[in-house]
């Protein structure tokens, strides 16, 4: 069987697992997205192994983009370091020990901090993207910028529409109302079932073991 052809949807990016996840560079998992003719493939790469998750276009229920504060946090941290470094640079230039080698080193460090700060702002707001199917809600870490997520969504949307059909905006509200009504009805049915089971035997009521009396 010939292998399926995949087209790259996003480049691989680190899958963060909590605060410490960022620092585990060696053992980090990199996640990327690829497009096939009938599904999106998510690859979690751990250097020497790859794990695959396939999301078929016909099964995708929703895609959620949530704007995060990561860009602001990075901006704050990098600005703080830059101000510190700038202060040192100014004191070196105007002050007592204006050694050219030290100034060059500080300038280099200044640039090392300034470039990520610039890139962080050029790339735009950060986000977290979630893909939902009937059985799971999966985060897609490779879509970590709003602009990038919009681009990816623009590529996926027509493929999902081709597999599932279009959903008109007014149809969404009608379907949601229907869904709410059916969930209310099932909740009521569940409540009545629960009320009926009030008289059902409990775990505590059950005998601890069955004892067979000798005849």
């Amino acid at each position, binding site marked *: 069987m010939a292998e399926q052809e995949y087209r790259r949807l996003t480049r691989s990016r680190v899958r963060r697992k909590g605060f410490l996840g960022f620092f585990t560079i060696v053992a980090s998992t990199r996640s990327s997205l690829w497009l096939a003719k009938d599904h999106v493939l998510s690859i979690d790469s751990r250097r020497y192994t790859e794990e695959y998750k396939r999301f078929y276009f016909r099964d995708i229920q929703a895609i959620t983009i949530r704007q995060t504060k990561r860009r602001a946090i990075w901006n704050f941290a990098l600005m703080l370091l830059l101000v510190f470094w700038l202060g040192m640079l100014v004191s070196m230039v105007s002050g007592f020990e204006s050694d050219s080698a030290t100034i060059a080193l500080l300038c280099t460090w200044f640039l090392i901090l300034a470039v990520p700060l610039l890139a962080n702002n050029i790339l735009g707001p950060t986000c977290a993207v979630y893909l939902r199917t009937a059985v799971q*809600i999966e985060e897609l870490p490779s879509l970590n910028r709003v602009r990038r997520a919009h681009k990816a969504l623009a590529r996926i949307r027509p493929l999902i529409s081709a597999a599932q059909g279009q959903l008109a905006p007014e149809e969404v509200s009608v379907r949601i109302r229907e869904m709410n009504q059916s969930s209310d009805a099932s909740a009521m049915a569940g409540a009545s079932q629960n009320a009926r089971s009030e008289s059902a035997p409990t775990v505590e009521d059950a005998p601890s073991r069955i004892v067979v009396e000798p005849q």
Partner: protein
Amino acid sequence: MATFSVLGLNSLAGRRQIHSLPSCPKCGAPLVEGVLNQPSLEPCPGCQSLLQVEVFPALFRRTAPAGSGEIVLVDGESSCFYHASKKAVLACQGCGRFVCALCDCELNGEHFCPACLETGKAKGKIKSLENRRTLYDSIALSLAILPLVIFIFWFFTIVTAPMALFMAIRYWNAPGSIVRHTRIRYVVAMIFATLQIAGWGIGIYFLIENLHG
């Protein structure tokens, strides 16, 4: 007080969660119509986080309950291989055995019996079920390159170079990454490993020559 029915309801509630309307990933508030399928990011009604939620028809699709298989009524009617009393509905595309509606596992338009599905997954025969691969080409390349890159470990190449060469030859035909179809890593690993082995060979030769000379 734990009742038998409460245990059942808990699992039901867990299942219902995924079949409900999309909710905010941050605060869990159910998202109302104004937020869904909007062209830009809209504030969540619960936590005011900016969200854009695109819903598709699959969200509203009701999944049909799985068939339990019809019982064989007429003598001589083909029955399921696994359930002799159930009527066969089709043949497994893996092994050709007749299966009932209960045993029919559909996968991208193909129909398999549970045994073939399990075997196909274990042996990697059904590509769409394959969920993990080991990248032997990356291992071989690392073995060939890393001791040179981390310069203080260059003497490890006496062990790592033959290992890299062995891995490149042994796993040449093993499936690599699902999205990368090139063997360039194997080739580079073999070139580097061969050069390292040759270097060690020449070095040892000259060492012996000097000792004798």
